[in-house]
């Protein structure tokens, strides 16, 4: 280092070492998991050579295919519903001077973040159980509703942030130039809001995709998603097949988060 020996204002003894350890701590387990997904043997600890066999196994596993598709379906629907609802709510609660009830709406939208997942999960379990008995309906609707609900605060966050950083005079300028409220929204607000909406959708999508606890409690028989399927598998003999699925899943999350990261970066 060029600065070696010179006094640095910012340095704190040992901090860099601990930070290095932290990054190692965060990535080593995942790295190990990915590494052993390529193991030719059936162990997740003893390396027996490189192979794609577990990826093939996972790919040919009909059950994994089924739960993966269900996960994607639920995430797509829930994230879409949540993003639309959250965007509307964000439009109502930002910018203009707060109306009576702004705080209440804001609190309600963020409430799912405050409640421990397990509590929401059992609450939905007992509520939906009664509804299932009363109506006889046992379809995916329950999971979709639950996922939409806990995705809303995540979709709301970036949309709200984007709206708050948006110059209010732009809409005023549009109105001044004969744009009706709808036209002002369509030609000015919406195009400028779009990055926030996409970011909100992506967050909601990842959150829905990742959920284990609520899904585990709400799902009816035969409605496993990828995470609940994996949770079930962990009780049995563990083979690198789980590693392979996890790796694929991990890469999907990384992809979405990376997109999100760059979208945010371009914005600022």
């Amino acid at each position: 280092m060029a600065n070696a020996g010179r006094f640095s204002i910012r340095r704190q003894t040992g901090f860099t070492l601990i930070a290095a350890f932290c990054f190692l701590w965060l990535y080593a387990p995942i790295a190990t998991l990915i590494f052993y997904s390529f193991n030719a043997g059936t162990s997740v600890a003893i390396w027996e050579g490189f192979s794609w066999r577990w990826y093939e196994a996972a790919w040919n596993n009909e059950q994994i295919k089924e739960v993966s598709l269900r996960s994607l379906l639920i995430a797509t629907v829930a994230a879409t519903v949540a993003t639309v609802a959250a965007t509307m709510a964000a439009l109502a609660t930002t910018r203009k001077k707060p109306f009576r009830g702004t705080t209440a709406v804001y609190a309600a939208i963020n409430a799912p973040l405050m409640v421990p997942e397990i509590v929401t999960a059992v609450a939905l379990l007992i509520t939906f159980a009664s509804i299932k008995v009363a109506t006889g309906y046992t379809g995916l609707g329950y999971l979709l509703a639950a996922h939409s609900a806990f995705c809303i605060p995540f979709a709301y966050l970036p949309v709200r942030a984007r709206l708050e950083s948006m110059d209010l005079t732009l809409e005023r300028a549009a109105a001044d130039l004969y744009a009706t409220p709808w036209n002002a929204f369509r030609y000015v607000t919406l195009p400028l809001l779009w990055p926030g909406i996409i970011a909100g959708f992506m967050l909601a999508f990842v959150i829905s995709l990742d959920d284990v606890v609520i899904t585990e409690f709400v799902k009816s028989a035969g409605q496993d998603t990828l995470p609940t399927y994996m949770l079930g598998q962990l009780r049995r003999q563990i083979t690198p097949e789980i590693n392979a699925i996890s790796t694929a899943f991990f890469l999907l999350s990384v992809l979405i988060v990376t997109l999100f990261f760059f979208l945010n970066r371009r914005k600022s």
Partner: protein
Amino acid sequence: MAAGQSAIEARGVTKVFQGAGQDAVKALDNVFVSIRENEFFTLLGPSGCGKTTLLRLIAGFDFPTEGEILLHGQDIAPLPPFRRPVNTVFQSYALFPHMTVGQNIGFGLEMLGRPKAEIEARVNEMLKLVRMEELRNRKTSQISGGQQQRVALARALAPAPKVLLLDEPLSALDYKLRKDMQIELKRLQHETGITFIFVTHDQEEALTMSDRIAVMSKGKILQIGSPRDIYDRPSERFVANFIGDTNFLEGEIAGTAGSEAKVKLASGAVISAGLPEGFSGKNRVTVVVRPEHAGLTAPGKKADLSGKLENIVYFGTDTHYHIMLDGGASFMIRQQNSRGGGVGHAVGEAVGVMLEDHAAQVLKD
């Protein structure tokens, strides 16, 4: 008042902003003003005086708490902003960042549902008007502040509004550019024949560009008049103080004749001063004299006032003489410098002050 005479008329307009808690702010207090067709009208005042609020009421972004605003004699209260034939140049320009220069300028006409060909022609016309033909396809973030200002102007002018509102549009520009734009704005107003209502806190800007000025303070219009009227015959202390430098002299009315009065000052000197419209006829008054409307005379010569020279400050274009008048008031004289000119005065010497005709003016308050 017959319709057609005034482009915009405010009748008893009051705007109260309900603040947090119980405190309400009266941004406009029973304002009456009539702005003529084809006029360059300026609302001048310090920040918080209500000038921008009045502009927003005309544009339709806010509604008056009381009173009405007429456009060509018609009450525009029920019209939302997008139905008012009035366009605004915003202080921050508020150019749409996701559109090109051309799209910005054409936006109003597009919203009005005009045919494409007409929009196209009009956009070109506007670009030519503000001399920006070659920048049509640029994004608004890729052009300079001065250019953004022109685009904002062109955008507001494109739909050919009856009235153009300008909310401190030059405040973000540097000094040189601001000077250029002042001339440019005046030219545009002349060429388009549209009524301009211009809001500013810059007295110089107001004086150089306006046909008429309304000076505002604390939600009230204090004086309306031509720049010369406002400068030479301020009617209130605030107006005199806000625009230019002024000497204030306290005195008593010794007699009036028409719009002229004799005022006896503390030193015993009597000067003649103009009376403002609607003068209340009170006895103790304040008289104002602009520093350049008075001159120094040598001691012993005939003079309106006399005193002692306390300080001389050289300003390049002119020189300021600070005088302590007999009777205890301070007085300042501004004299333009000329090559080799200027009688040598020295600090501490006794001097006389000559007032030009109609230099003194009695204030209402």
